[in-house]
C-alpha cells in the first residue's frame, strides 16, 4: 500500500523530470503546442471569468463586513484585493485548468494509450513525452499565467463594484488603501503560483493518462484520479508557497 503510493509518486516526479529535459529537445512541436494552447484557453476563459466575479464579490463582502465591525473600513480595498490576487485567482485558475483542460488531456492520452497509438509512436522512434506531453504541459502553464491576469482583474473589479455600490464604501478609500498595502511582488507571486499550478495540472493529467489501468473503464478512472490528485497537490503546494512568501517578502504596510 505504502510502497505503491511511493512508487506512483516517484513515477510522477520522473515524468516531471523527463518533461523538463524534453522541453529543450529539438524539434519543438510548435503546431501541437498552439493547438493545445488554444484548446485549453477556449475551455477555461469563460468559466474562469464567470467564477471570478462572484468570488471577488464574496471576499469583498466578507472583508467589508469584518472591517466595518473593527472600524477599519478604509482598508477594505487593500485587504480584499490582496486576497483575490494572491490566493483566490491562482486557485480558481488551477481548478479550472485541472477540471476542464487537464481532464480532457488525460482522457485523450489515455484513450490513445489503450488503442496502442502511443506504443506505435514509440516503435517509430518518436517519444510520446516529447511529441504529446511537452506541448500540453507548456500549454497548461502558459494558459494558467495569462488566465491568472484575467481572473485577477475581473475579481478585483467585482470586489470594487460590490464594496462601493453595495456596502457604501468610498472609491477613494478603496483605491488608496490598495496602493498603501499592495506591492508588485504580490503580483509576481500570484503569477508564479499560476505557473507552478499549471505545471502540476499538466503533469498529473499526463501521468494518469499515460498509465491507465486496462480498458476504457481504466481511462475513466484515470481522469477522475487526475482531477482529485491535482486538487490535493494544488492546495498543499499553495500552502507551502504562501508560507514561504510571507516569511521572505516584507509586508509593505509594515
Amino acid at each position, binding site marked *: 500500500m505504502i510502497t505503491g503510493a511511493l512508487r506512483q509518486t516517484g513515477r510522477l516526479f520522473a515524468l516531471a523530470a523527463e518533461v523538463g529535459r524534453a522541453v529543450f529537445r529539438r524539434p519543438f512541436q510548435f503546431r501541437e503546442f498552439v493547438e493545445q494552447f488554444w484548446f485549453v484557453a477556449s475551455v477555461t476563459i469563460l468559466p474562469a471569468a464567470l467564477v471570478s466575479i462572484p468570488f471577488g464579490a464574496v471576499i469583498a463582502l466578507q472583508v467589508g463586513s469584518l472591517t466595518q465591525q473593527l472600524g477599519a473600513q478604509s482598508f477594505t480595498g487593500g485587504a480584499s484585493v490582496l486576497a483575490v490576487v494572491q490566493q483566490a485567482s491562482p486557485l480558481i485558475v488551477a481548478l479550472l485548468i485541472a477540471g476542464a483542460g487537464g481532464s480532457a488531456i488525460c482522457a485523450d492520452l489515455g484513450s490513445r494509450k489503450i*488503442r496502442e497509438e502511443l*506504443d*506505435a509512436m514509440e*516503435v*517509430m522512434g518518436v*517519444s510520446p513525452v516529447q511529441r504529446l506531453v511537452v506541448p500540453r504541459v507548456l500549454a497548461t502553464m502558459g494558459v494558467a499565467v495569462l488566465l491568472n491576469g484575467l481572473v485577477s482583474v475581473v475579481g478585483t473589479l467585482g470586489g470594487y463594484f460590490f464594496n462601493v455600490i453595495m456596502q457604501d464604501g468610498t472609491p477613494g478609500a478603496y483605491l488608496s488603501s490598495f496602493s498603501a498595502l499592495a506591492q508588485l511582488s504580490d503580483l509576481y507571486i500570484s503569477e508564479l503560483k499560476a505557473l507552478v499550478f499549471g505545471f502540476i495540472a499538466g503533469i498529473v493529467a499526463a501521468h494518469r493518462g499515460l498509465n491507465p489501468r486496462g480498458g476504457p473503464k481504466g481511462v475513466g478512472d484515470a481522469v477522475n484520479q487526475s482531477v482529485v490528485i491535482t486538487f490535493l497537490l494544488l492546495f498543499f503546494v499553495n500552502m507551502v508557497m504562501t508560507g514561504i512568501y510571507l516569511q521572505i517578502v516584507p509586508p509593505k504596510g509594515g
Partner: protein
Amino acid sequence: MGIEVVVEGLTKSFGRQSIWRDVTLTLPAGEVSVMLGPSGTGKTVFLKSLIGLLKPEKGRVLINGVDMVNSPERDVYETRKLFGLMFQDGALFGSMSLFDNIAFPLREHTRKKESEIRRIVMERIEVVGLLGAEGKLPGEISGGMRKRAGLARALVLDPQIILCDEPDSGLDPVRTAYLSQLLIDLNAQIDATMLIVTHNLDIAATVPDNMGMLFRRELVTFGPREVLLTSEEPVVAQFLAGRREGPIGMSEEKDAAALAAEADAVGAAAARPRAIVPQLEPSPGLPPRRAVARRRERVMGMIDQLPPAARSAIRRTYERGAGAPTLPLPAAGSGA
C-alpha cells in the same frame, strides 16, 4: 540486407505470473521466421520485448550491437528506426487520415519535401492495395484495411527488420493468402529480416524459412521450418493438426490424468506423417529472394545436428530443384 536479431536467455513475467523463461534464438538476417503458439502464450509480449516496448527481467536482445533490453533509452530509440512493426489492429492514429498516418514516420524522421513524401506514401498505399482510401480516417474503414494501412506505415521507412503481430486475425482465408504472398514479395524486394507472430496454420506452412513455437512458458523449438513441420513433439503435432487431443487444453495445459485417458482412447491414429507444403515464391516479375541462397548454405551447414526426419525433409526440398519454383509434388509414397 536485413539485420540479424540475437535473443539470449530472455525471461519475462508480469508480477508473479511468468510469461516465458530463458528464450534463446537467432533470427537469421533477411530470412522470414514465424513464431507459433496457442493464444495467451505471450507471443505479442515477445514481439514487444524485441523492440524494447516491454523490458524483460533477464536476457538480451542484440541488434547491431545494441541491447534493446538494457541499453540507454537513446540507443534504443535510434535502433527502433530500423524496425517496422505491424500491430494486431493497426494502431493507427485515430485523428489522422490514412495518408497522414503513413506519412508520419517520414515527416518525423526525414527532411524530405512534401512532394517526395507524397510519392513514397502513394507507392506504399498501392503495394498494400489501399489506393483511393488514403483520405479516410481509421474509424471509417474495415479491420482488414486498417491492418494493411498499419503494414504500409511499418514499411515506409524501408525497415531492416519487420515484425508482424498476427497479420491474419480478423481476415478471411483469401485475404490471408494475399497477405502471405505480400509478405514474401516484400522480402524479395527489400530483403528485410521478418518475424511473424501468428496461430494461422496456412501462414505457418507456406511463408517462413524458420519456425518456432512458444508453449508452457518456454520456447519449444526454433529452427528451419522442416524441423518444426516434421517434429514429433506432442505439443507441436497437436497444434499443427489443430486437434483437441494433446497437451494443449481449452484454458491452459491439461493435467496428466486427462492426458493418459486421452492417449488410451486415441491410440495410434494421431501418428500420421504430415506432408510438407512447399514455401511460397515471390510473384512473377519480382527478383528472387536473396535469403534463399543464404538459408540453403546455413541449413546445409547445420544439417548433421538436425533430427533425422527434418534432415530427409530438407534434402527432399532442395532436391526438388535448386530453389526454382515448383508445384507441390504428391509426396505420399515416400513416408517419413
